[in-house]
Structures are given as C-alpha cells and as structure tokens.
C-alpha cells in the first residue's frame, strides 16, 4: 500500500469521528432545505419568479451550503490543527509527504460535499417534487468548479490562520457572506438588480446562478464560469503564496 493510500484510509477513518463536521456538511444542508420547504408558499408557483417555485432556487443554494461548510469551516480547522499540533512536521521526517495529508483532506471534504449534494437533490425530488438537473453534466462540471473555488478559499483561510482557533474564526467571517451570496437568506433573483449583479461576481453567487441554469437544462452563461475560474486561480495563487507547513 502506498503512503498516499494509507494516509487517505487513515484520514477517512478520522473523518467519520468528527461529528461536528459530519453534521454541518451532511445533515445541516438537507435539514435546511426541509425547513425552507415547510414555509407556506415556498412550494407554490410564484408569479414574481416567472411562475417558478421558490423552493427550486433553494435546491442549488443548499447544495452550495454543504460545499461552504466543508471547504470554509471544516477543512481549514482540520488542516490548521494538523499544522499547529505538528502532525505535518512529523510527517516530513518520514518517507511520506505532508502533501499526502493535504490531498487526503481535499478529497474527503469534496467527497462529503458531493454526497450532501446528492442528498439535497434526492430530498428536493422526493419531498417537494423539484426535478433533478436537466443537464447533469453541466451541473456536475459547475459543482466541480465551485468546489475548486471553495476549497481554494479554504486553503487561503488555512494559510493566513496561525492556529485552528483562528482558522475557525476566519472561516466563520466568510461563512455568512458566502451563505448570503449563495442565495440562502434571499434567493438571488429576488435581490434588486445591482445587489444581484454584485453577488454574481462572488464565487458562490456565480456558482448558485450557474447551478440554477444547469438545473434548467442549459450550459451556464460563460460569465458565471469565468467568474468562478478567475476566483479559483486567484485563490489558489494566494494559498500557494502564503501557505506554510509549520
């Protein structure tokens, strides 16, 4: 067994021992969707939204919530605590590389967010009759790009936080803006024009709109994809610039 596989196996086991992470990534987003679905009127066709139902906008939103909790909250705290405790340092003295641990964390948090997305889509379909994405490939591609942007943002949070506590606080400070731009407080189409355009320039705003378009059956508009790509490149460069192993 290669070191990388062994690390992934060990980290997977440890991941299942983090009830907080499991709750916020896997349980909270479906419960949130359930809550929205129970609000009277959210399940009825709304003339203000071109005859669409509000709950339909909340499906991509809650898919992104899973991504947000995984990449901005869970992963930075996990990585910063590994660095703080010297877990990465210890690994540097073995034939394994600390980057194996980094890769394992990225893989696990993306996998968890993807699983949560499946749960949310299934719940939307089963409970509220929200159709599955009509363009699955576009949906998956958008989700992957969104995940990359989110994880890159998480990596920046890890890079600029000296301790796990600081990573938690930094994560929380971007958590609420991220939730807002993903359309969790107010669905993006309900925002006044300029506010919506501004939200669409953020990674999660662009991702929310792109997911909605893919769900409706088309490839997302290029401007959303460009915004997401630019953010990803920028954040990855920042993370690479500032990240320290110890």
């Amino acid at each position: 067994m290669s070191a990388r596989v062994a690390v992934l196996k060990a980290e997977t086991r440890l991941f299942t021992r983090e009830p907080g992470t499991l709750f916020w990534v896997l349980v909270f987003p479906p419960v949130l969707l359930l809550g929205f679905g129970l609000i009277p009127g959210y399940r009825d066709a709304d003339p203000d939204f071109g005859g669409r139902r509000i709950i339909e906008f909340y499906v991509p939103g809650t898919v992104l919530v899973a991504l947000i909790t995984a990449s901005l909250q869970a992963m930075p705290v996990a990585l910063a605590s590994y660095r703080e405790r010297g877990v990465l340092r210890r690994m540097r003295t073995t034939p394994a590389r600390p980057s194996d641990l980094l890769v394992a964390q990225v893989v696990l948090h993306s996998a968890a967010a993807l699983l949560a997305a499946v749960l949310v889509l299934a719940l939307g379909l089963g409970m509220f009759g929200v159709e599955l994405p009509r363009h699955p490939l576009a949906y998956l591609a958008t989700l992957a790009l969104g995940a990359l942007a989110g994880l890159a943002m998480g990596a920046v949070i890890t890079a600029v936080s000296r301790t796990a506590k600081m990573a938690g606080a930094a994560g929380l400070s971007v958590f609420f803006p991220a939730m807002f731009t993903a359309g969790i407080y107010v669905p993006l189409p309900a925002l006044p024009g300029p506010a919506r355009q501004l939200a669409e320039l953020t990674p999660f705003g662009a991702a929310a709109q792109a997911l909605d378009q893919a769900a409706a059956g088309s490839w997302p508009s290029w401007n959303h994809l460009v915004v997401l790509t630019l953010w990803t490149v920028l954040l990855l460069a920042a993370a690479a610039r500032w990240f320290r192993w110890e």
Partner: protein
Amino acid sequence: MVRGEGKDHAENMSIVQVSGLRKSYGDKVVVRDASFAVEEGEIFGILGPNGAGKTTVVECIGGLRVPDAGDIRVAGLDPRWDHAAMTEVLGVQLQSSELQPKMTVVEALELYSAFYRNPLDWRTLADRLALGPLLHQRFGKLSGGQRQRLFIALALVGRPQVAVFDELTTALDPRARRDTWALIENVRQSGVTVLLVTHYMEEAQRLCDRIAVLDRGRVVAIDTPSGLISMSDSPTVISFRPSRPLPHTDLQALPGAVSVAEHGGHVTITGTDETANAVIGLLAAGRVIATQLRVVDATLDDAFLHLTGPNPRGDN
C-alpha cells in the same frame, strides 16, 4: 568510538557527521560552526541549556531546515538532497510534533509502517514498548509517558540506522522518565545508533557514551560524561562538619581549592583530589574531628555549569 576504534581513521566514516553547521533566523545566529561526529552504535548526547540551538541542529539533521553553511551527512546521505533516502535510515522524534488526536495507537502504527519499504512488524514493536494494552486508545487520551513510547515506536518502525530523540523525557514524571531511559538503552542494544537531545544532566550522564555540550550555538566540549566532569576545575567536592570552627582563609589557601562555603557548621569545599588530601592533613594537624566527612566526584551538573557559565573557559 565504540565500534570504529579498530578502523583506520581516514576510512572510518561516522554514521552522523556535522561539520561547520551554521544557522540564523533573521539577525539571530542560532548555531555557529557546530561540528561533531556520531559513531555507529553509540548513544550520543547533545546537551545544552534552553535556547542553545539543540533543536535547530536536530532539525537540520532531519532535513526540516536548510543550514546557512556547513555540511551534514547521515549514513553518507545529505539531508538536503537525499531527503527521501534519508528518511529510510533516520527515525526522528521531534519536539512538539503530535499525532491526530482521534487516531488510535494501532492506527498510527499501521499508518507509519505503510510509509516504509521494509518496516518492522509493528506488533513486536508494540510489545517491546508495552503498547499492547493501549492499541485501541486514542492518541489524545494517552498520558505523556505513553505518548513518548508510541513516538519511540514510530521512530523505529522503519528500521532506521539512527534514531533521533529530541527532549523525549521533558514532560514526564520521574518514574516515566526512568522507564524511558531503559527503553533508549534497549534501542541501542538492538543495534540502532541514538542521538539524544536533552537538558537533563542526570539523563545525559546515565545514558550517553559521549556528549556534545552546546552553548549559545557553539559546541563548547565533546567528551565522555566522566571526561567532561574532569574538565571542570573543581572535579571533587569535600564536605564535613568540624568539631570546632576553622578559619576560612586556611581552607581557601589549600592547594587546588576553588570554593569554600559554610552552612550551619557544615563546610563544603570544591577542588581537586589534592585538595581532599590537604583537607585531611589540615584536620589531623589541628586535631579537629570531622563528622559526616564526604569526598565525592563533582557531577555532570557542575561540569556543565562550568562549561556554559556566564564566563565559560571555552567562550571566545
């Protein structure tokens, strides 16, 4: 020193060689021109007060830091360029590097075994280090001594030729410390060379074949523990309770006497063997009866203070 004695000096390659090592952090010079060689099969100590640069030396050997100048070889490998190969011959326990708190002992042993090409059977290792009953405990729940035992196991699991232990016993209670000492002797008996970093004199004196004393980034002495003690200008301590007070000036004037102190009628004189003889002569000549007369060797403690004191002889 131990096994290399028979060989010709020129072809005798030490298992760890550090020459002219220099390292600064910003303006602060932490290690200046440190040189020493560790021979195969010995327990070599690096002893020094806090902030002497011990950990930096070890981090350079372990390939975690790049020296500003100097050369390091571990089993002939350069930690800078042969990092991957070196991790197979060097097992390291660094200070302040933990494990994931929710990882169990058995998971850690299995994981670290998987890192190496030809690992030891971790079950045997766990038995040797009395980790058997702890296999399913999480790292976060282990006591200090139990953690150190696990760290020793992880440092050894790759069958290294050299094991580095940095301040292994610092946070341990005296009992756990003694248990750990026995384990370190055990490690050497199994054929692994040990590089031990410590600031405990007793530990260094008890375990090490040779010691490098590090002070403010400089190696001020390298010798066996007894060699270091005899380097002190007062290797002998004489103490007694005289039947009547003796004038300090007489005692101070004894040959080789370095210091004289009196506490509640109890006199302590430091000096050499010669001083001890002179004290006895003085007592006999003055018909003074001395009770509780003790003549003991100075400890490594005394030697260490002498070497690293505010004005050590080796300072330049």
